């Protein structure tokens, strides 16, 4: 790797957050019950969304959904998707996939030996995955975070 002029890259590289297990600056609020503190002094941990939603920080990515095309999958415009690449794709997983170089979100279905992708639309029988599709799973959608408008 060439070592070139800009010092910025090493600054960011070395702040390896993943070793610490505090991954993102996603320190949203944590719930803390003061009443409980007096009644039950054993209550120790705050509720932390990071550890709750993210099991494998190194393999977890955030992605934004656009449009209503995936509403049958339970995903709406503007939703934040937490994608976990470390999970194995199983029957009925919602996945972010790549087909012929394009990103796509579908539900993965296994019917015996066949593998299908479905939009969950009541009239969608599902498309079978073929070699021509150059299909690849990018990651399993672990959580969908919807912010009501």
């Amino acid at each position, binding site marked *: *790797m*060439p070592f070139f002029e800009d010092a910025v890259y090493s600054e*960011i590289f070395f702040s390896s*957050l993943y*070793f*610490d297990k505090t991954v993102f600056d996603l320190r949203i609020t944590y719930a803390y019950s003061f009443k409980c503190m007096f009644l039950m002094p054993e209550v120790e941990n705050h509720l932390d969304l990071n550890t709750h939603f993210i099991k*494998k920080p190194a*393999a977890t990515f955030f992605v934004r959904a656009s449009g209503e095309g995936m509403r049958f999958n339970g995903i709406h415009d503007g939703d934040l998707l937490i994608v976990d690449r470390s999970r194995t794709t199983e029957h009925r997983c919602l996945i972010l996939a790549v087909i012929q170089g394009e990103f796509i979100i579908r539900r993965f279905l296994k019917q015996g030996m066949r593998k299908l992708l479905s939009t969950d639309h009541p009239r969608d029988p599902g498309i079978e995955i073929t070699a021509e599709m150059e299909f690849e799973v990018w990651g399993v959608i672990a959580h969908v975070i919807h912010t009501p408008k």
Partner: protein
Amino acid sequence: MSSTHLSDPEIFALVDCNSFFCSCERVFNPAVRKKPVIVLSSNDGCAVSLTPDAKALGIPMGAPIFKYKDLVKKHGIQIFSSNFALYGDLSSRVMATLAEFTPELEIYSIDEAFLSLRGFSSRDLIQYASEIKSTVYQYTGIPVSVGIGPTKVLAKAANRIAKKMGSGVFNLTDEKLREEMLATLKVGDLWGIGSRSAEKLNRIGLLTARDFKNASSRTVRDLLGVVGHRLQEELRGVSCLSLAHIAPDKKQMISSRSFGKPVFDLELLKEAVANHVTQLCERLREQKAGARMLQVFIHTNRFKDAPQYFKMSTQTLLSAENTTNVMIKVAFQGLEEIYRDGFEYKKCGVILNDILSTTPMQQSLFSYDADSGGMSQACERNERMMEVLDHINAEMGSGTLKFAACGVQSSHLRSGRLTKKDPEKEAYLTWKAKNDFRSPRYTTAWDELLVIGSGR
């Protein structure tokens, strides 16, 4: 993993990412996975990372891309400007994943790491290496190559072979295989052998890595000194370089700058280092923090056809320090250790690690004065002086007061903006301004996330 005893021989794996910056760009952009990709440096549009297919088109590393504009257009080469936020983040992920595979990890650079695989039997090594490779790809989308050997140099050589063979993993622990495969590497392909050294070796008939390994130690020592001798020993399976134990840092600060005109003198390097230390210590004091590890690095211009030298010294301190004069002294010690006469230095820098808050500050035994019941007088005086210094600089502009070590006339340290304009570079900058090739910061900026879906 089988239980490990220190009596087991050391086994190193060198894992490095293939065309790292290019691979990073491909993670969120599958459309360019099958196309040649080049990533450019931010300053002047030189190719800093190329995929093998881009290299095959004849574009060399470090080439100013403007000169190859037509080739780019003709072959549909995808060009990207450096996206450091993305590369740094993906690198962290790769390293965190590698850390799952070994108790001892040395992060060597943004895209390379050494792992200790001590305790694994030969039979399991390739299997394990394949597991590492597939897991890193699954988790992060970055393809890597793994080379295994009983020494670091051999692990690096194995990695090179793994890339050449296309398998992505290779194991050089077996002596017979080593003998056979080292013949396929040129001496210049070896880690630590630059073009000058390669030339010297070629002149006396040592062309392949195998030739070099089997040459007489005396000849090698005479020709390349103790460094060459160590390399040879490593090739022979005798480990001279151990894993540097770099604990994961909570925080780090870096100050570094390239020189406008290359620097040979130690005194000038000292001045630059002193300035870097001053800046960093100011930041530390602002944050009410101190550092316990100081690293100084110097290196030559990699893209220039001249002898190469890159070295970094590491100093650890007993207690967290943030006083400039103490840190300058420590930095100078480090610099003197690594400085070698005769090289054209292009850049130097100072890195502070292991940064702790100074409230409450842990006092080392040396600064603790039992009689006075607190910090020693010298230490206290120092701190007060720093307070005054900071106050004056804040009132009258930074740099008003600084240590003499920082130098009075530092015009030579400014980057060469006073040189005459390069018309080609100007043309490139105009072209670049019209086409911003930087990809979104997919993993570090909320409003630059990958967007999937219908209506955009």
